[in-house]
């Protein structure tokens, strides 16, 4: 618990630093390209298009999901996945990629995963806004359920920070972790019901819920579409926060225990 307090204090004390570094992170990412921001939006749009055709028309034959147009249902879960799927690998690689740069000074290393996540977060916010617009085109207007975003978005960020803090420490010491993360993310994309719907009331569905990402994806749908999932699954929410807390405690402990030695492992 002390570890979480230390990390929390570091993040709070270096808020301006995290903010500025996240801007430089996005800046250096796109400085090579003429149409940087265009690709930020274009790549996900193309992906959405492909999944829509394959899963929406190919597999589902164009049927809506519980009356919700498939493309809107797909996008509201997929934008959460885009954020998760790009943040976990880059968060996990965040420290060993940069430690040689920053360790020449007294730098709070726990801020590195934070600013790497924040750099991805700007695009995510834009995508949430676009999804709301898309929903309106289908007649789904923002309502009370939209306020659930104020819960589910921070929940996602905290979860991702916990995961990144742990993975970045591990992958700095054992580089194989990075390969594991990459293939795990590839599998999770299909093992999480983002593009397909698990059969109702089955043991299979319950087993899937071991994966806390299901809570985040369905939480986003609840907030953007108004499926009411979050209010119907309070116990599952409790499970999600338990997993997140354990990750945070373990991540903070591993990070603080080994960070003095990170440079020796690079």
């Amino acid at each position: 618990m002390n570890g979480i307090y230390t990390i929390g204090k570091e993040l709070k004390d270096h808020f301006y630093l995290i903010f500025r570094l996240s801007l430089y992170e996005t800046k250096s990412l796109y400085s090579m390209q003429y149409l940087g921001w265009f690709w930020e939006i274009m790549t996900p749009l193309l992906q959405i298009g492909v999944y829509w055709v394959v899963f929406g028309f190919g597999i589902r034959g164009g049927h809506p999901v519980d009356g919700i147009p498939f493309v809107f249902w797909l996008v509201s879960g997929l934008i959460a996945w885009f954020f998760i799927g790009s943040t976990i690998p880059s968060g996990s690689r965040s420290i060993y990629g940069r430690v040689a740069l920053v360790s020449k000074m007294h730098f709070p290393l726990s801020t590195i995963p934070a600013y790497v996540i924040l750099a991805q977060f700007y695009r995510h916010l834009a995508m949430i806004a676009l999804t709301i617009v898309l929903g309106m085109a289908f007649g789904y207007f923002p309502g009370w359920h939209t306020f659930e975003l104020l819960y589910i978005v921070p929940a996602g960020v905290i979860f991702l920070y916990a995961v990144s803090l742990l993975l970045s420490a591990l992958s700095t010491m054992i580089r194989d972790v990075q390969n594991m993360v990459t293939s795990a993310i590839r599998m999770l994309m299909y093992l999480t019901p983002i593009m397909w719907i698990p059969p109702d009331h089955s043991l299979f569905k319950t087993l899937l819920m071991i994966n806390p990402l299901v809570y985040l994806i369905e939480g986003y749908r609840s907030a953007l579409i108004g499926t009411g999932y979050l209010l119907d699954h309070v116990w599952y929410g409790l499970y999600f926060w338990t997993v997140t807390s354990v990750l945070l405690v373990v991540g903070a402990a591993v990070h603080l225990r080994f960070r003095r030695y990170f440079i020796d492992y690079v």
Partner: protein
Amino acid sequence: MSHVVFENVSKRYVLYSRPIDKLKEVLFGKVSGKPFYALKNVSFSVKQGEIVGVVGINGSGKSTLSHLLANVTPPTYGRVTLGGKSALIAISSGLNNQLTGRDNIELKGLMMGLNKKQIQEITPEILEFADIGDFIDQPVKTYSSGMRARLGFAISININPDILIIDEALSVGDQTFTEKCLDKMREFRDQGKTIFFVSHSLNQVKSFCTKVLWLEYGEVRMFGPTTETMAEYNKYLYWYKQLTKKQAAHYVMKKRTGRSDEIERSTRGETIELSS
């Protein structure tokens, strides 16, 4: 008052024969590779306002020493006491190639713990010192190596460290820039700051340093006033050069592995940074 103190400092690196040994060490804390001591029982103390030249042939532990001074890496055994904030200037000065020079000034300032206002204050001085004109708003990847070194040096020197470590950084600049740097360092010395100057340029060390620390395969061979130490070091270099290849290899082998069992292990390594 002593500004920098090393007490029986040793730094061990482990040479792993298989990657799995490294994993074992991370998980169980058991050292299963071959230990290699880059520094062995190094002790010395330096007063405020001194310029210490660090000399030694390749592999003598100069870079490890500068990393310990810059608090980049902790010692394995022994205690390092630093009398203030330290900054390391090396050739690879850690600039981000994709960003402009101006962005790099802010980025590096932030990483060294300055706030927004402090960065704004030092920016004009950095621009003046680095003297790279309009290139300051171009990405660093378009810079020549001299410009890169100048910018890196200008940033590090202007963040006002109490202890400055210069690791071979002056070898890339031209004569006028080197002069400018040396002037700036004299100014530093007069302000009562401590400078460590790691260099292979014996002339620069001779003309500039007040004391010389001579390292040989991880041990302090000599530490004293510049003239005497440099005279001894010169003699040593001459002697070393006339060794045959076989003799030299034997000598290096003996020195490198020797006395590893005499390492003082009583204090677990720590770096203490006193706030100035």
